[in-house]
């Protein structure tokens, strides 16, 4: 039952992240989130800033963003703090878009990308200084 629900969620999110961009979608995202960052959830720019504040990320700190979709907010946190971000999620279209976004933002030198679920993280113990996720189970 749990595995089936997870499959349903993966299918739904893969479809969601396969939607292209358009000026209309960008306008909606800007109205809801406060910026055009490839987001489709409920974490606003102000709330991403709040994460920066509570995590107190130093330049070079290692940040893991789980279920980051197209890289929001992990890439934003990397851009603002100069930390190194590892962006993870399971829908391939989301991670591919996140990577392309990192290239555009010139963050590719301090960002990495992995297809991974939050419950099965392919990293050694004590790898990260901080972990974020936004509305991910």
């Amino acid at each position, binding site marked *: 039952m749990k595995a089936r629900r997870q499959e349903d969620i993966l299918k739904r999110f893969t479809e969601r992240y396969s939607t292209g961009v358009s000026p209309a979608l960008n306008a*909606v995202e800007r109205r809801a989130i406060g910026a055009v960052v490839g987001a489709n959830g409920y974490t606003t720019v102000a709330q991403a800033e709040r994460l920066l504040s509570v995590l107190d990320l130093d330049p070079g700190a290692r940040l893991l963003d789980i279920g980051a979709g197209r890289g929001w907010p992990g890439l934003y946190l990397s851009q603002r703090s100069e930390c190194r971000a590892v962006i993870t999620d399971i829908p391939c279209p989301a991670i591919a878009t996140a990577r392309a976004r990192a290239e555009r933002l010139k963050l590719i030198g301090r960002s990495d990308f992995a297809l991974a679920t939050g419950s099965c*993280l392919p990293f050694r113990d*004590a*790898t990260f200084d901080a972990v*974020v996720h936004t509305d991910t189970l």
Partner: protein
Amino acid sequence: MLRACRRALRPGGRIAYYNIFVTPGLPERLHRRALRAGPPAVASRGISQVDLLLRAGFKSVKETDLTAEFLKTARAWYEGRQSQELELRASCGDAWFEERQADSGAMIPAIQDGLLRRSLFVAESE
């Protein structure tokens, strides 16, 4: 997942996350309505996130309720899509548009009725 996060964090490292969840202690009928109305990844366990964090080995756990902001953002998505209806139907399709508006149309009243909440959780790895 929190145990996996705890393992991946260095001692003293921090976790911070936003979480949408079904309001604890609802009668079964309202609990089911909250699950139907919430996003796909809505948390619905009987155990609170604070307890889950403590059990996973975190300390200095802090929860900040942000349900009012959640409602505001959910409305902004709904109203934003409505304001771009013609363009979105043309670029994303009628089914795409109607599915998202129906999802938001169910979720907004559920937030207003106190069935769904969203909080920021911050904790430190021991």
